[in-house]
């Protein structure tokens, strides 16, 4: 009876110890999950944004104090569980469209995304058009007859010439 009690007590102790280890492990994991926002995660969002002070400098490579603070803000928002688009939208709301590399406003987005393609397309078509015109003018340039051959006249033109010369003589 006493041996049985000792055995069950030992089992309970082992169970409690196991539960304690599980609890500690899960708490550690939860803490790691909250703090494990890497620079790569922050920079993945920061490279889609621009420095608030410098001209045309992406946020991920900018080293001004303002950029560092913005990146820290991104890190904080990621830790709070916000998504990439939510974070960028938040920055745009606070600092305007210039904060984002690609504007969120549909009109501005359309302009920035499609205009370069339209320009490239127009230039390409223009180039093709110029080439086409050049080809057609080349096709119509009269070729000089060889020096040792008289110019070839069409039969009806020769007949007309003969008639005309005869009339003039008369």
């Amino acid at each position, binding site marked *: 009876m006493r041996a049985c009690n000792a055995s069950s007590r030992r089992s309970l102790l082992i169970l409690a110890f196991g539960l304690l280890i599980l609890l500690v492990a899960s708490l550690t994991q939860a803490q790691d999950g909250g703090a494990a926002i890497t620079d790569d995660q922050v920079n993945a969002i920061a490279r889609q944004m621009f420095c*608030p*002070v410098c001209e045309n400098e992406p946020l991920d490579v900018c080293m*001004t*104090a*303002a950029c*560092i*603070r*913005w990146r820290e*803000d991104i890190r904080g928002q990621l830790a709070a569980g916000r998504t990439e688009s939510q974070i960028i939208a938040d920055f745009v*709301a*606070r*600092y*305007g469209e*210039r904060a984002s590399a690609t504007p969120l406003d549909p009109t501005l987005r359309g302009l920035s995304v499609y*205009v370069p393609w*339209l*320009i490239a*397309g*127009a*230039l390409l*078509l*223009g*180039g*093709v*058009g*110029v080439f*086409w*015109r050049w080809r057609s*003018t080349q096709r*119509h*340039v*009269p070729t000089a007859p060889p020096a040792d051959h008289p*110019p070839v006249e069409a039969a009806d*033109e020769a007949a*007309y*010439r003969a008639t*005309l010369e005869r009339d003039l003589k008369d």
Partner: protein
Amino acid sequence: MTYPDPLTELSQPDAAPPRRRGLGPFGLLALIGVVVIAAIFGVALVRNSQSQPESGTAPDFSMTTFDGQPVSLSGLRGKVVVLNFWASWCGPCRDEADALEAMWRDYQDDGVVVLGVAFADLDPDSVAFMNEFGITYPNGPDTGTIISKELYHITGVPETFIIDQQGQVRQFIYSVVNEQDLRETVDSLLAEGESAS
């Protein structure tokens, strides 16, 4: 009257077909492309060439201060306004914070308003900066950077504009304010106001 010599005409080689007048579809597209490119570069050039107003009517704006009070520049007509753009991450802004607060404390009863606009700053950082320097003059965030970039075209911080009682920009200070110079300018504007009334 002279007629062209038919023989000469006949002896001419076949003339090239008459050239089409006007633009073909390719030419039209190329022209549209050139116009679009020119327009885009033109707009960009105009935007880049805009600089801080150093005279004339100060662009009007309204904002909500960090303590929730609405402020508009036009609502301050009749007062001298020292409009200061700053940020908590800006080193030189720390150098001038005490001078601006001293100005506000000394002149607020004489018809002078110091108005701070936080540029591209995080709100908690701005408030911490204000607490650190004991700033009591009205301050607010520039939501969307509309005041700083769209209206006053600032290129960095700190930048300060002194606006007279009629809402005209009288001085633009590109860097840190010098308290003595600031006091002289404000004094002269107050004197102008008194002599006018």
